[in-house]
């Protein structure tokens, strides 16, 4: 069977609670382990002192035997030790001086007779027998028989082995450890909900922010973050980011809505023109000439509608085209200008407006700008057409190109200058707006759709360039007319 482990995203509160409780659990385990070690050390130290004392009292009970030899015996009559303790005493000759009555409880234990302990303060060892655990101490003492005799009496080296059951010591230790463990567990159980409650309170600004943000929709862009979200250092950047994003979204949404509404108006008007033209023709019986003239008008209306739709599609394409992922493109600016000039030659001749363009580079060397060739041609021809449409007969339209390879990034400047009526200063900021008709004579009567400059701006922005327009509407000035300057980055 195949097991797939899926990591489910958990809430921040859940993760924090788990983290805190894990740390708490770890520290309580540590407390239990440490307390176990500490308690064991303390209690066994006390136990060993007691064991030593009792072993000493066993040694003290070794007395002179009432026999001619200077032997010693263990006098158990005055010995008061707990009955469950075990002991035995040997002399230096390996003679057993005495042992406790219950020594047989430890039959397995070999005592090596009177062998001295390896340490002067005694040997500890542990034995288990019959289900009891004993801690054994082997100590050695000396007992002098008849010390007042000549020669200082006889000195006996007596070895005592004393054992006491460790069960109750362990019991005390276990109880202490149990107390710590239960205490820690209780703390863990109490602090768990407490942490959860505190976190719930602490995360309140975040939840408020989320609740407010979730209320934002296409219809209501209102987002007024709570003061707590603004003043919390962790939330302030997020709040500002949400606000900024919403503002940008609302702006672009409004722009889109305006565009759709404007486009609908233009299209409906164009359709209204066509429909009324046809209905007008059909209102009464007409002569063949009248029908023909009417049909020609209808065709002209249809052509205008066609160019409006084409311009709208071009604008949509220019605005949505994304340079990401596309191969870096390059277009020869000079070539594009030549193409545009020849394309608009007829219109220029019809309006009697010569176009002056002098190639700045010798031998028709290419000047590559970083944009698709199609866009470049469209840009130049739109600018040129715009200039031609607003030029009075017998004036000139000038196209100039300069380039600055030294600045970073290197750029080329395309200047298209006409000597028409110019644009009033109050209309100038709006000329790049879609469908802008500050002065109807500039668009309607010249057959424009009001989209030409908007398309130019979209193309230039896609190419990461800049476009600006300057105009002198005063007929008294010698430089009356409009100048459009486009700055385009050069292809590398």
């Amino acid at each position, binding site marked *: 069977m195949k097991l797939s482990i899926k990591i489910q995203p958990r809430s921040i509160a859940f993760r924090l609670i788990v983290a805190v409780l894990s740390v708490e659990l770890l520290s309580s385990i540590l407390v239990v382990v440490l307390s176990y070690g500490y308690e064991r050390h303390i209690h066994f130290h006390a136990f060993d002192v007691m064991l030593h004392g009792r072993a000493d009292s066993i040694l003290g009970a070794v007395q002179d035997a009432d026999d001619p030899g200077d032997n010693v015996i263990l006098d158990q009559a005055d010995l008061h030790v707990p009955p469950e303790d075990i002991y035995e005493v040997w002399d230096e000759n390996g003679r057993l001086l005495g042992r406790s009555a219950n020594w047989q409880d430890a039959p397995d234990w070999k005592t090596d007779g009177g062998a001295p302990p390896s340490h002067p303060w005694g040997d500890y060892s542990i034995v288990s027998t019959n289900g009891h655990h004993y801690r054994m101490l082997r100590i050695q003492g000396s007992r002098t028989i008849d010390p007042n005799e000549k020669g200082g009496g006889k000195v006996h080296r007596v070895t005592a082995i004393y054992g006491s059951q460790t069960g109750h010591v362990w019991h005390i230790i276990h109880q202490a450890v149990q107390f710590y463990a239960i205490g820690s567990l209780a703390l863990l159980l109490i602090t768990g909900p407490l942490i959860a409650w505190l976190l719930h309170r602490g995360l309140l600004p975040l939840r408020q922010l989320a609740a407010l943000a979730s209320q934002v929709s296409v219809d209501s862009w209102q987002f007024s973050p709570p003061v707590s979200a603004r003043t919390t250092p962790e939330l302030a950047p997020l709040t500002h980011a949400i606000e900024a994003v919403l503002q940008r979204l609302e702006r672009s949404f409004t722009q889109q809505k305006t565009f759709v509404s404007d486009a609908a*108006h233009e299209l*409906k*008007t164009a359709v*209204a023109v066509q429909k*009324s033209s046809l209905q007008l023709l059909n*209102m009464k019986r007409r002569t063949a000439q009248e029908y023909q003239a009417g049909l020609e008008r209808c065709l002209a*209306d249809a052509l205008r509608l066609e160019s409006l739709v084409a311009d709208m599609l071009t604008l949509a394409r220019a605005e949505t085209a994304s340079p990401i992922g596309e191969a870096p493109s390059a277009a020869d600016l000079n070539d594009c200008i030549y193409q545009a000039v020849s394309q608009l030659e007829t219109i220029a001749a019809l309006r009697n407006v010569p176009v002056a363009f002098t190639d700045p580079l010798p031998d028709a060397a290419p000047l590559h700008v970083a944009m698709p060739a199609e866009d470049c041609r469209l840009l130049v021809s739109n600018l040129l057409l715009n200039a031609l449409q607003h030029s009075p007969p017998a004036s000139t339209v000038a196209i100039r190109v300069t380039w600055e390879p030294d600045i970073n990034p290197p750029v080329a400047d395309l200047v298209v200058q006409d000597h028409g009526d110019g644009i009033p200063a109050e209309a100038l900021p709006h000329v790049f707006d879609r469908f802008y008709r500050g*002065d109807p004579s500039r668009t*309607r*009567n010249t057959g424009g759709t009001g989209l030409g400059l908007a398309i130019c701006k979209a193309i230039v922005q896609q190419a990461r360039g800049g476009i600006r327009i300057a105009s002198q509407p005063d007929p008294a000035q010698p430089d009356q007319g409009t100048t459009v300057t486009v700055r385009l980055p050069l292809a590398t």
Partner: protein
Amino acid sequence: MRVLIVEDEVRLAENLATALRDGPGFAVDWAEDGLAGDEFAANPCYDLIILDLMLPKLDGLGLLKRLRARRDATPVLILTAKDGADSIIQLLNAGADDYLAKPFDLGELIARAKALIRRGKGAAHPTLNTLGMEVNTLEQTVRRNGVFVDLSPTEYRILEYLIHRPRVIVSKRELLEHLYDYNWEHHSNVIEAHVSNLRKKLDAAVPEAEPIIETMRGRGYRLAPTFPPELDPAAEDPAISPFTGPSE
């Protein structure tokens, strides 16, 4: 009747003007932006204003508000490409009388224009009955005492204008202003000739009739009652009278 079209789309304005001239025979003037429209409308000669909503310089709503602010009661028909009840409610509340959404039907536009002019003059029905005359504004035909009277277009237009203003002295200047747009030379003797012809044709229809159009020397013309006002059948039965407003 004289109509002002305020529309920035040249071709649409051309079509509307042609349709209104050819169809109901209105005189039509055209303004291509809001400010020009405002200047035109300052002249009280218009019987109807057809107003586009999106206009350069001054939009349709702004122009409408200016009109109503100076107590200009000329009927206004709005042409709009905007959807949504909000903008229509806003327009009607600002004083518009009717609206048409683009793209509209030319026949509907003409019918609404006629209805608005009629209503503006206080008549409810397209057939006007008064002084023994029956003027059908749809067919543009006139009958006097049931006898068909054949009129030229200009004669018909003069009669239609006069019949909306019974017993009121209408000056030649007023007739000129309401029957001709700025494209025509204004010659008052043209009016005199037309009125003279109109009177002859109307009087010829009924033998031994009283002259129905009075000439007030130096003041103008008046559509006069054939008999004294207290015996006027139109005044006796207001239910069939096309004139619902107070008589001037």
